[in-house]
């Protein structure tokens, strides 16, 4: 028989769980955490460009990163960081002994702050790049 614990078991089960608020928060936290790690490596990779090419290549790369598709990806990344960071704060509050009985409400408070910050960031990025 298939095992009843381990990474494979976790992945199989987690795709079929009932999505209570806390479970949703856990999955979002995990996915965004991994997303930021992936970004970190891409970022280090891109920034090391100067190491291989001391010419104008790096400036061209920077110009590409300032184009609309990349800016949208930046905003998605920003949303991921806000969700991860704010939910991280939520988890740390529990560790300090607060709000355990109010975990669902606290999740939505944090997500409301995240959504507001993403809206403001979108507005600022859009204003700087002539979207409106």
């Amino acid at each position, binding site marked *: *028989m298939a095992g009843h614990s381990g990474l494979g078991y976790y992945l199989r*089960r*987690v795709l079929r769980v*009932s999505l*209570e608020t*806390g*479970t949703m928060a*856990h999955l979002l936290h995990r996915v965004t955490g991994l997303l930021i790690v992936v970004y970190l490596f891409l970022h280090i990779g891109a920034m090391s460009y100067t190491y291989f090419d001391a010419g104008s290549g790096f400036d061209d790369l920077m110009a590409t990163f300032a184009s609309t598709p990349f800016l949208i990806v930046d905003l998605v990344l920003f949303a991921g960081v806000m969700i991860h960071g704010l939910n991280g704060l939520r988890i740390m509050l529990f560790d300090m002994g607060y709000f355990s009985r109010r975990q669902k409400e606290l999740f939505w408070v944090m997500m409301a702050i995240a959504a507001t910050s993403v809206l403001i960031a979108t507005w600022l990025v859009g204003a700087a790049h002539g979207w409106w």
Partner: protein
Amino acid sequence: MITALTLQELDVENVVLRGVIDLVVFRIFRFDPARNDAPTFQTYDLPDTAGMTILDALIHIKENMDSTLSFRRSCRSAICGSCAICANGKNLLACNTQVNDLKKVRITLEPLPGFPMMRDLVVDWEPFFDQYRSVKPYMVARSTPPEKERIQDQKTRKAYDEAAQCIMCSACTSSCPVVWTDGNYLGPAALTKAWRFVADDRDEITRERLAMVNNEEGVWRCHTIFRCTDSCPKKIDTAGSIESLRKKIIWHQLTGRI
């Protein structure tokens, strides 16, 4: 007339339909290690489920439709903890959950996740009770008892009131994604039991108890996902009791007591 067959074919999970046709399709996990290589799901259609608990439905199926179906139950009144199962991905007691409260036309019943399977809806609870026994689930008081009783004030009694309601159904431990990943994690039920005695001031081995859970497979493995709290039929904040243990451990460390 909509038949059960078309319902299954359409894979309908529509709440509205419940008002139109009174029929629930149970998809039940079937596995007999002596006969089957792999588990399958078998469906049973039950009309007229009003007033029926999930356990009533299982008993109805066993008595009238398929006597080979295995499941556990004893008290039928939410106190023995034997009927815990996983319904539509959520752990609950079959005997105190109304079928119609799930508001679904299709209900998938599975054995509790995270435990070895024995047969159909029955799991092997030995690993669960091993964890339970490992936290010394009884009061230890070695000092000479007073003449009448060990006095406890009401406030202290209240501190573990919730944790003392546990019926050992294992719904919490089985619902935990960390348990699904790491079979050695003590799990919320055993940790809540540990907290029950740490919070009881008549118990005299608080330091030993904190040391028992102050490790990687104890309180520090918890990711505060709250599935355990959400699953508990006795509404115990199991995640909260793990946090309480952590807080106590930190406090003991800061004040040099452990």
